[in-house]
């Protein structure tokens, strides 16, 4: 495979990894801190050490 074609064929792969990383980052931010009217439900949704309770 020519280097140029090889590089072009890598583009979707790299784009997929970048989009996945951005999606994971956004998910962490939304779940951790909330966004707009969506509360950050990550800390509250997990069971916790003693009892399941909503924590800030």
């Amino acid at each position: 495979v020519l280097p140029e074609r090889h590089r072009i064929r890598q583009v979707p792969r790299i784009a997929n990894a970048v989009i996945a990383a951005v999606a994971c980052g956004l998910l962490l931010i939304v779940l951790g801190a909330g966004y707009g009217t969506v509360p950050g439900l990550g800390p509250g949704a997990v069971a916790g050490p003693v009892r399941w309770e909503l924590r800030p």
Partner: protein
Amino acid sequence: VTDVKRLGKRGSYRLGRLRVQGTVRAAPPVPLRPRFRRPEHRGSAFGWVLAVVAGTAVIAGGAAAGLWFVPLVAGVAAGLASRGWRWRVVVITVSGMALAGWGLPLWWQAWSGAPVGGTARVIAALLGLPPHAAAGVLAALLIAVVQALAGLWLGRALTARPPDGRSGPGI
């Protein structure tokens, strides 16, 4: 020019197309035969089962410690480690790991008498769902699964092999 002269003549057509003179007749199409790819994952089945159990335990331990982002981390790890496994199998397995990892601590707390239902109702109300305990528990488990699948997506994207045309998508 010669092709134009052959138009309409007997023997000039083959299956509706103009026959080309002076060339070797194309070989008949090879009948499609299904091929089954050999599994490309390494390690024994017992080892993989052990890894799934360990992953579930890590997610459950993280949940018990209040670390809500552990399903995402475990999903990334699963994506990195699951190269060679079919995408469908990995998605189902990782979803099950996340469900069990967050469900077991909740079940344990409910079994030991903790007021799990009240918190579940509040979470359901916060999400705009009917304020039922089941809705809250399902929402919490869904958060775990979504995290794990997002992490899995990232892990698989980081380990995707370059397209060389020799292998399929593995779905």
